[in-house]
């Protein structure tokens, strides 16, 4: 019986080079993104086996994770980080892989530069040694994170050995209220199904709302697919996608455009497509979301009372109690009003120009609350330049925030930017794991708007008041 296919099925089927029963498929990869932290062992394995880099024309590299974001970032004080950076420069040059290095004008967080350069296109299989590779799914690509050994496989053969995942359709119903954004939407999904809720699945996000969301908002949604366990999550391409892909460095040349569009327009799910699982999420009553615990599933609406661990199943209850012990919160208390020490705006989740614009709109002419420190880290050199052209940097600097250079920065405390021990941060990032932003630090993840409103108030605060005024 011939049945309808989802976009996930279509892209998968199109990329299978070889498959035998009970074995994983050999899946062709169209684009490999490399950065300095996870590429070294893969290059080393290539060398050890004496193999050439098979498709350097289907790869790019950049620096993001261990790079400092300080003004003099070319001089890292960490010799190991410095060695990784030098190593990537050497490896990429040796194998002919283009490297978007510091001050190339194009360096940045790998999942920010891919789309903005037009490298990310519908129908592609895209991989990187980083779990937030799911970001690129916003373009109707099948994009997922891989480990170091797999990076080596792709370097040598342009393929991965990977079993076909199950498919999960997530249907969003209704509209986002004012002051509630894509970040809140995806956090609400993760809170609903849990940190492992989509394990074994790739998600297709559906719903009328998506048509009204920008490409950057779609990237925020797809970015956090991994936080509910989905290795990849995608949104079918539409006119917004095609418009975004006009005029970028790697956009199809004029003579290829009609052919590209015809291919891209074929990438949608059949009306009778069957998914292994389906979920709907209603948006109309959503509030700004903030995490309260030690994984992204432990999140809640900003005014809602924290759950009582005794009301949860035993392992969830124990996890909740342990998480609250770490974050110093109590059952029944709302997150609104909790004092913060640090605010961080940046990351592959929310470090793009629209994120900076929203935060700047809230912070314009205002000051950080007394005692609050804030880092604003544009996701790429292109974003930084654009933000400066729009005067956003001046808004953040006047408010008392630090305006930094592009990189992963404070998301994961491995490049000099850390939240000090005992301090509480609200961040536009994707993970609130215990110690993620620095040993014994506390992280609350939230939307850029919520981060900005909270930084001004000195406590976790809803940004909604700024959006009832139609000026914003």
């Amino acid at each position, binding site marked *: 019986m011939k049945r309808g296919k989802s976009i996930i099925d279509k892209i998968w089927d199109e990329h299978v080079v*070889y498959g035998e029963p009970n074995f994983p498929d050999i899946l062709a990869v169209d684009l490999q993104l490399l950065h300095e932290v996870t590429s070294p062992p893969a290059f080393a394995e290539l060398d050890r086996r004496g193999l050439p880099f098979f498709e350097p024309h289907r790869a790019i590299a950049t620096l993001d994770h261990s790079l400092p974001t300080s003004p003099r970032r070319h001089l890292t004080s960490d010799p190991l980080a410095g060695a990784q950076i030098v190593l990537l420069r050497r490896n990429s040059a040796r194998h002919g892989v283009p490297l978007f290095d510091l001050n190339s004008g194009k360096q940045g967080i790998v999942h920010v530069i891919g789309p903005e350069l037009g490298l990310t296109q519908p129908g592609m299989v895209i991989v990187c040694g980083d779990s937030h590779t799911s970001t690129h799914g916003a373009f109707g690509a099948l994009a997922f994170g891989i480990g170091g050994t797999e990076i080596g496989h792709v370097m040598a053969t342009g393929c991965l050995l990977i079993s076909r995942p199950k498919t999960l359709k997530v249907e969003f119903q209704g509209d986002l209220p004012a002051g509630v954004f894509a970040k809140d939407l995806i956090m609400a999904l993760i809170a609903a199904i849990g940190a492992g809720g989509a394990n074994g699945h790739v998600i297709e996000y559906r719903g009328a709302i998506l048509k009204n969301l920008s490409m950057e908002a779609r990237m925020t949604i797809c970015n956090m697919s991994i936080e509910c366990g989905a290795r990849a999550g995608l949104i079918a391409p539409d006119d917004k996608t095609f418009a975004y892909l006009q005029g970028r460095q790697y956009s199809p040349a004029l003579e290829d455009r009609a052919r590209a569009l015809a*291919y891209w327009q074929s990438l949608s799910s059949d009306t009778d497509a069957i998914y292994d699982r389906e979920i709907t999420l209603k948006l109309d009553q959503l509030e700004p979301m903030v995490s309260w615990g030690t994984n992204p599933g432990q999140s809640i609406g900003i005014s809602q009372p924290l759950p009582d661990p005794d009301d949860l199943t035993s392992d969830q209850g124990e996890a909740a109690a342990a998480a609250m012990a770490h974050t110093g919160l109590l059952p029944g208390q709302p997150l609104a009003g909790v004092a913060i020490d640090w605010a961080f705006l940046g990351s592959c989740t929310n470090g793009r120009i629209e994120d900076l614009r929203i935060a700047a709109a809230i912070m314009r002419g205002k000051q950080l609350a007394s005692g609050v420190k804030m880092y604003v880290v544009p996701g790429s050199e292109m974003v930084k330049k654009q933000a400066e052209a729009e005067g956003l940097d001046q808004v953040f600097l006047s408010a008392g925030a630090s305006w930094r250079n592009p990189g992963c920065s404070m998301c994961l405390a491995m490049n000099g930017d850390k939240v000090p021990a005992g301090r509480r941060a609200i961040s536009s990032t994707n993970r609130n794991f215990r110690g993620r932003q620095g040993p014994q630090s506390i992280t609350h993840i939230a939307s850029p708007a919520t981060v900005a409103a909270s930084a001004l108030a000195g406590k976790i605060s809803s940004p909604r008041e700024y959006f009832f005024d139609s000026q914003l």
Partner: protein
Amino acid sequence: MKGFTTLTSVALRLPQRDIDTDLIFPAQYLTLPFSANYADFLFRRLRDEQPDFPFNAHINTPANSRPQILIALANFGCGSSREHAVKALLDWGIRVIIAPSFADIFKSNAAKNGLLLIELPEPQVNFLLTTDSPASYSFIVDLEQEKITFRDQVIPFFTSPFLRRCLLQGYDEFDYLLAHFPEIKAFKKQRERQLFYTTTQQTFIS
């Protein structure tokens, strides 16, 4: 990759769910070369912050006498794709992890490195976590027969045929891919038609 048929060991118990790879291998150590021994960095923060953390009981145990089995709750290995987490577990001495579920990328990474992951239904995992005399009883994990023997219980488990072949024979996925390289090259030539840019002038070596 080291092959694996049976293994007899006591188990370490971590009755926690959603153990993420930032806990298993904190990001600050990601600048270390991959050739280093990662045993000291396994669960480093938890070991420093909690003196009674299970792994601390074996600080002075020689690496080849340590427990080789870890039992944990759902969604083990979630979060970052860092393969360092798998390597740290193996470098410390863990060869088998038993849990109700594992995160997808962690599963892939484990398979590439000979770390056996066994998914069992939650009631069985809870039994193994809470049964009397926990620390001193040995488990026998038989990969060929796909069963775990613990005291008087025999617990069957499932592994995918391909994974079992890789682990039992020390068979390398890299070699499997290379064996199909002619098909891959032919496929890639065709695929070029659906791709609309190249990042450099140099195309693949055919």
